């Protein structure tokens, strides 16, 4: 079967990468023993070290076929031995090196194709520069509804780019979505770029998006913490915080999701600069946070605030800094459940719905608590895939499924906001 071949190839590749051998003319035979006597013959063969046989499964009393790689010089001798003892075999791989060379060529070709074409691969993780280039490309391709502007610069002076999706009007009611506030949560930045493409490309066809953008604008910050994101590429894949210097400490960075002015500095955050949930010296100390705060406050008409995180598969509403229900608890909970149900209907991915405090832990100074306390009723935090199997290192093959299943949930929320102005 193809899968079996792949396992064998990788096994050989694996072996090759360790031993730097070539496998020209090596054959892989599959031997089916029918009785104990034949097994004994195989075990005898195995013991002949000068043949340099590489048994991928060992001849034993398990009634399993035995796969063995035979160096080119010994292929004929081994076949003669098997035939003279009436032992059945088939040729699994005629020439291992040919297969390995083909594999190498295929990989090189695929890389070449990706470099040559100008299409952005949404199913893989990209550098910050590549993401920013794609944002420009989206603005160029869908210039009638997409524009890009800067809301500020990061600690290390990288631009914070927001995409605006709009069909016009002045200061319309708007939705805010941000991703990548914690830099190691790579599926969020990747999903955000996919979502940008989805909104832009389906504007002409999807009735929900058409009616949405007729009345409302969408603002999307795809990389909220670009310094951290670059750091996860260059140095430490597990970096979470910003990259700001902390006075009096060798430890770097503040948790940007503990830095907002809502229950700031409480027990649901750390006052230790070396902690992953360090809240910072004061609320909005981080320029990345202050930039978003400034934008939201100056806009004045943001009606929904959605932050994307990973991982844990949760859909949460306020509060994190206290365990009492928000005033709009009933509506937020119902909307959250409807959105989670939309996620589940695609691939069966289950999300748990609830307030931050009841669903994950007490957390002070978070984005949605601040937004909610500042008048943005529809404030939600998503924790996307998965639930711990790969965690932050979600395989890139899951990017598009994750974005695809999250999108209807976002749409549910946005349509609800559209239909319930306040």
């Amino acid at each position: 079967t193809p899968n079996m071949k792949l396992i064998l190839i990788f096994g050989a590749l694996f072996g090759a990468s360790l031993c730097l051998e070539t496998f020209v003319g090596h054959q892989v035979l599959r031997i089916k023993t029918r009785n104990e006597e034949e097994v004994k013959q195989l075990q005898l063969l195995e013991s002949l070290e000068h043949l340099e046989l590489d048994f991928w499964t060992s001849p034993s009393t398990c009634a399993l076929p035995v796969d063995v790689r035979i160096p080119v010089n010994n292929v004929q001798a081994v076949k003669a031995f098997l035939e003279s003892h009436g032992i059945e075999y088939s040729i699994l791989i005629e020439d291992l090196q040919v297969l390995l060379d083909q594999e190498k060529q295929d990989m090189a070709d695929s890389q070449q194709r990706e470099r040559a074409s100008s299409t952005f691969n949404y199913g893989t993780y990209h550098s910050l520069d590549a993401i920013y280039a794609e944002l420009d490309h989206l603005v160029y391709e869908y210039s009638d509804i997409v524009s890009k502007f800067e809301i500020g610069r990061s600690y290390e002076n990288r631009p914070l780019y927001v995409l605006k999706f709009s069909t016009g009007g002045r200061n319309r009611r708007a939705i805010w979505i941000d991703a990548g506030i914690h830099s190691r949560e790579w599926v969020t930045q990747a999903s955000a770029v996919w979502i940008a493409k989805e909104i832009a490309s389906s504007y002409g066809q999807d009735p929900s998006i058409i009616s949405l953008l007729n009345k409302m604008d969408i603002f999307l910050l795809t990389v909220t913490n670009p310094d951290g994101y670059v750091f996860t590429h260059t140095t430490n894949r597990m970096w979470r915080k910003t990259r700001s210097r902390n006075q009096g400490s060798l430890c770097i960075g503040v948790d940007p999701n503990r830095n907002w002015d809502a229950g700031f500095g409480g027990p649901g955050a750390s006052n230790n600069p070396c902690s992953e949930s360090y809240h910072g010296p004061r609320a909005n100390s981080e320029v990345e946070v202050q930039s978003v705060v400034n934008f939201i406050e100056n806009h004045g008409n943001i009606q929904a605030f959605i932050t994307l995180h990973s991982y844990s598969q949760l859909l949460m509403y306020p509060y994190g800094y206290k365990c009492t229900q928000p005033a709009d608890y009933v509506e937020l909970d119902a909307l959250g459940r409807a959105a989670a149900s939309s996620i589940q209907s695609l691939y069966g991915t289950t999300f748990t719905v609830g307030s931050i405090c009841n669903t994950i832990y007490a957390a002070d100074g978070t984005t949605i608590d601040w937004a909610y306390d500042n008048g943005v009723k529809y404030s939600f935090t998503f924790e996307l895939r998965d639930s711990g199997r790969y965690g932050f290192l979600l395989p890139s093959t899951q990017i598009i499924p994750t974005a695809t299943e999250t999108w209807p949930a976002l749409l549910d929320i946005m349509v609800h906001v559209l239909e319930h102005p306040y």
Partner: protein
Amino acid sequence: PPSSFRLRRAAVLAAGLIRYRRGGPGRGPVLRDVRRGRGPDIDDAGHKYHLEFVLEDLNDKDSAVNCTAEVLYHLGNRNTPPDVQFTIEGELKSSDEADHRFYNQIKSLKEELVAENIPDSHGNVPPALVPIRLLAWAAAGYVIWQNSTEDTELHLAQIKRVKQVKRSDEYLEFDYVILLHDVVSQDVIPWRITVLWHPQHGVQVTR
């Protein structure tokens, strides 16, 4: 009703222990869902949770089995790992073929296996290294069990480095440096472990 995160933490812990006891290079039982639960029941011994949850194999979505567990977090002595009693309804899928294939491949290597960053930054695991990762995952289950409290939820984030140690006896031995992620504190903690394994004798963490 109990906060959902308390049940989830207990279920993650129980699944970790099950992975240590029943997992290996050919089998990776993982928590799929928490069906039901109650707790904490509080008494002098500590906090006890009763759970019903579903496990499946990492590489086989059709392999779901129901499990029940009782998890007791000791309050008095912080150094005592939680007590976990579990029952698996039915059978986990057999891993004999995969175990034997892995065992023979490793035994026949001329040089000791060395590898890094599993999965890599993009979440990829080369197929040849899948059993190495599953073995680490089973061993991490032990570390997670030994170090869990009601205020932690530990997952294996990544294998930073693995180095085989050749042995003259029948066991396979690997030195791993693993990263554990605690969802509650958000800390990523490096941990060095030595793992022994044999198809018949299962996983042992000796350090």
